[in-house]
């Protein structure tokens, strides 16, 4: 009816979007098809960089670690966040705003600062081991960032700590929308707190669950600063992640094409996972 007119209004925003997002993205895809050291003329190698990404065992392990991190960045915070938000909303505690702020605080702090702080906490003589020794649990003390099996979960738990606040606050906003009479009716019908939580609270905040999963899964997959500061991928190669590989290949090894290929694969993976989350979230509504 309006013809092309509406699109002219979109144009300015689109130009900015294209210049700063679509063009770099396209350029990254293009570079990923070349073997390029960032210095001399590149040679076209087709999909060879992608073949390397798929066959490189070290890189596959890095993607595996990122998937493990999803559990710590997305799944755990969602579980904790649901319970915490429900408690905070239903208990009608005083100083709700204060608790909300405290829970959200890790999200406000720069990730590098978080990582430096946790590096101290996890140090051999750090807060965690000192606390364990103080209560007589010497047997449980570990070299948290130097243990070949425990370091990945230890790094993941930092992510849980950071993401829980965001998820909780999002879910609280969703829960505030639920009409109180729903709970009243359920209580009259004899439903206990667990039953109302599962039958009313959780289904009502489905959109918020989807949003928080999208955000935290992205955070998990693109983790770079946390690993870079705490472990640099160690001990051995037990905490390497794809984003760190992108940085290392581009800036340290001078394999810009290969770095772009890893980045493109990572972007595609993030996109697909979130597409799946959205599809599932919408279908079951």
């Amino acid at each position, binding site marked *: 009816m309006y013809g092309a007119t509406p699109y002219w209004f979109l144009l300015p925003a689109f130009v900015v979007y294209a210049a700063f997002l679509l063009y770099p993205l396209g350029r990254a895809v293009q570079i990923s098809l070349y073997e390029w050291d960032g*210095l001399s003329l590149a040679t076209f190698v087709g999909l060879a960089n992608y073949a390397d990404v798929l066959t490189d065992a070290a890189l596959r392990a890095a993607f595996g670690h990122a998937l493990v991190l999803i559990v710590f960045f997305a799944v755990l915070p969602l579980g904790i966040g649901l319970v915490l938000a429900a408690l905070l909303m239903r208990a009608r505690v005083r100083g709700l705003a204060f608790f909300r702020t405290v829970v959200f605080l890790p999200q406000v702090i720069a990730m590098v600062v978080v990582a430096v702080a946790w590096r101290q906490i996890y140090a051999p*003589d750090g807060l965690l081991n000192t606390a364990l020794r103080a209560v007589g649990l010497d047997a449980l003390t570990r070299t948290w960032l130097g*243990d070949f099996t425990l370091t990945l979960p230890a790094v993941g738990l930092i992510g849980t700590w950071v993401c829980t606040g965001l998820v909780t606050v999002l879910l609280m906003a969703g829960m505030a929308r639920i009409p109180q009479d729903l709970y009243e009716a359920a209580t009259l019908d004899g439903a206990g707190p667990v039953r109302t939580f599962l039958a009313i609270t959780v289904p009502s905040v489905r959109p918020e669950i989807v949003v928080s999963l999208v955000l935290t899964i992205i955070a998990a997959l693109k983790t770079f600063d946390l690993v870079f500061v705490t472990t640099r991928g*160690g001990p051995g190669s037990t905490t390497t992640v794809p984003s760190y590989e992108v940085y290392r290949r581009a800036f340290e090894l001078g394999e810009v094409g290969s770095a772009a290929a890893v980045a493109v694969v990572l972007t595609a993976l993030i996109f697909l996972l979130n597409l799946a989350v959205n599809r599932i979230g919408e279908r079951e509504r």
Partner: protein
Amino acid sequence: MTTTRSRRAAGLGVLAGAALALAACTPGSNTAGDDGGETSGEPTDVRTDISDVGDVTLTVWDQEVRGGQNEQIERLNEAFMEAYPNVEIQRETQSTDDLNATLRLALTGEDAPDVTQVNNSRSQMGQYVGAGQLLPLDDYAEAYGWHDRFGDSVLQNSSYSPDGVTFGEGSVYGLPQVGEVVGVYYNRDKLDELGLEVPQTWSEFVDQLPAIADRGETPLMLGNLDQWPALHVFGPVQGAYVDPAEIRDLGFGNAGATWTDDANLQAAATVQEWAEEGYFGDGFNGADYDAVWQSFTEGEGVYLMAGSWLAADIHAAMGETAGFFAPPPTEEGAGPVTTGGTGLPFAVTSQAEHPDVAAAYIDFLTDADAMEVIAETGNMPVVETSEHEAPDSLNAEVYEAYDRTITDGALLPYLDWATPTMGETLGQGLQSLLAGEMSPEEFTQAAEADYSEFVDSNQ
């Protein structure tokens, strides 16, 4: 329906536009490196007197950000501009990490610096040399007599073949100001308490470790969370078992050596045994490098294997209590063999408009007068080290160890220079080796795989 169609049309338009924009150029086709050959190919007349070249602005990138480092550069820059009023130095300084990250882009752009500090490694200097972005300085080396000023064990660290394939020989591409050496810091009081003396031979040193451990002390402090610190323990150990010439080939990533021989295997087995015996203390793989040397200054442990760059800080914290010796030689009286090198060398880019001025500047930064300034500001001069007065008692011992290493012994390259990926291969490997997750055989095989793959692809 019209909306769908026009939406589709708009989408196609976007894709077409993007494709056009991208098809425009191959990555790297607009870089300055392509014509680098022209500037470096023809040997121009080398001029050492630059007072009559007219007004020149020299852009210099360095990473001398810390106290004494910054001071010496400021003083030398000022002196240079006083000596040559026609030259103005435009200095841009940033941290080492930032320099490493930004230089690659800068060299391919329009605004490349004239003179810059470059990391010696293959993944930095090697690649820039191969891409024709740094100027070979052989003509200047002859004119200024750099080969007499610096020994080969110093100049090899910034020498490459012009195609960037061979490291450690060929043309000189840069000059360093300061020296670095990895050795053993010790706590004098602790040694006295334990009734031990500074070991004169390697076997004496090795025998002391269990003796120290039996007394409940940590023999060798190590904080290996960041993976690279263990390389500075392994380097000297390797020096005790493996022929220096072979380590040089391994470290420079040149063909003709192997990681899997008995000597390297023995070195790997030795550090693993030390870890198993608990000589590195508890949780060394999860301990922070800085935190560990700081706890060493607070009286923990007896020995700390680390580089000369810690001397000023350790002396500030421990005073006369701290001492330093080069890893003792296998035979008494021989020269020490250890890991070390130079500070980041200053190189001339092929985009430099006045190579004569740039070379004169580099010469000025590294001549005898400059070494005096470097020593005065608490840095370790790269040549004639022991002739200069050290700023404190600990540095005096460091100067002596370095001087003996470059004159009588062998200064071995950092092992991670060998290939672009070697830092990670060895870092992860040593963490695994020390934790018992890898056997010495697996460790040397992993290093060999990295080394031989690179050497093969580099031929």
